[in-house]
């Protein structure tokens, strides 16, 4: 019963370091000591289990959470959650949040001089199906300035939080839009050393998923860590 199959480490240079000074907040918010490498035990390969009772159908349609419709360009965002071994991750809880079409968050500390939208909260959640598929209907978020450095702007993005099978698979990331001219200027994107890994955070225009005469669509597939090939007795090299 103590035999668990651990997860492989992410491929080199696909993940940001904790300290990345161009993103100023990391300077005081990154650990200064090396992390302690630990084996995967039952604690790390298990994690919270969510079910369909945890999400409402309206949770995945951010355009239908108020009496009126939000302003902005309606979009479908869909894709699959897979692991590195190409296996679908079923019943994964995805939480998503975003700015409105004007680039403003419904949050007390966002004082960007752009209008709030009374018909848009900017939060959704969905559970992946048996094939790992998910789908949101929302509006395209606007870019917005932040105070990281002079004239700093965040490219349009959606925040994603994903619970996989075990806590070792937990992932929080951001999805970007193809062709956004702000991407090369963004410290968040540039914190990822590998250029191909950066590009995988950029969704692709998804003609097949468009809703004719109603909404354009973007595809964003998410890959969580994969299991080691063989079970091991909670030891890792």
């Amino acid at each position, binding site marked *: 019963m103590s035999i668990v199959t651990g997860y492989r480490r992410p491929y080199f240079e696909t993940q*940001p370091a904790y300290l990345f000074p161009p993103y100023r907040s990391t300077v005081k918010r990154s650990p200064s000591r090396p992390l302690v490498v630990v084996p995967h035990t039952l604690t790390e390969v*298990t994690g919270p289990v969510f079910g369909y009772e945890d999400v409402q159908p309206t949770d995945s349609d951010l355009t239908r959470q108020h009496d009126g419709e939000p302003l902005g360009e309606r979009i479908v965002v869909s894709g699959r959650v897979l692991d590195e071994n190409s296996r679908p991750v079923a019943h994964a809880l995805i*939480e998503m949040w975003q700015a409105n079409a004007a680039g403003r968050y419904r949050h007390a500390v966002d004082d960007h001089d752009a209008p709030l939208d009374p018909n848009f909260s900017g939060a959704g959640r969905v559970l992946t199906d048996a094939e790992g598929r998910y789908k949101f209907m929302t509006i395209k978020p606007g870019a917005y300035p932040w105070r990281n450095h002079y004239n700093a702007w965040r490219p349009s993005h959606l925040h994603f939080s994903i619970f996989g099978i075990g806590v070792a698979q937990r992932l929080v990331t951001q999805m970007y839009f193809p062709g956004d001219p702000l991407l090369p200027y963004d410290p968040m994107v540039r914190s990822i050393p590998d250029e191909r890994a950066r590009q995988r955070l950029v969704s692709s225009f998804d003609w097949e998923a468009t809703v004719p005469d109603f909404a354009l669509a973007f595809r964003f597939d998410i890959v969580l860590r994969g299991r080691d090939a063989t079970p091991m007795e909670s030891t890792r090299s």
Partner: protein
Amino acid sequence: MSLLTTSSQTAGPYLRIGMARFAIEELAPPGVSGERITLTGRFTDGDGKPIDDAAVEIWQANAQGKYAHPEDGQDKPIDALFRGFGRSLTDAEGRYRFATIRPGRVPGPGGALQAPHIAVTVLSRGLLKHLFTRVYFADDPANAEDPVLRLVPVERRTTLIAARTGGAKGAFEWNIRLQGVDETVFFDV
């Protein structure tokens, strides 16, 4: 076919928008068996300032040492009312809070039992990747033989141990410090 893990990005300062729905500070409704405890503390940055825009997530076994998860094949009872997941969004003082039950012991490497512990994940603006750590309980004799705690340099182990407070019965305090002389030990999981 082999894919590569999607890159992590920070949860940013507005995580509350997306994460408030599953903020779960009380994990154990009436009827869940086990010793009732509270776990609170402050999350602070390299200047000792409170981090007021973070999420602290916990994952734990029930009082019998069984996870509510299909991969836990131990012959121990599941507590139907206890999922074992908590999330607290920090307040203006950087404080998180949980009311839960003290977890039982779960197996570790080689089948030896681990000391009672709770897995902790922290997310916030400024963290490009979430951080993993664990919290153990003061005065638990099993701590001395815990296989994960023993990987931590002796002088830093205290950063992973919640202290009993002088207050209510079962009240534990545990602070999370990102930097400094008593910087919390974080794990490469």
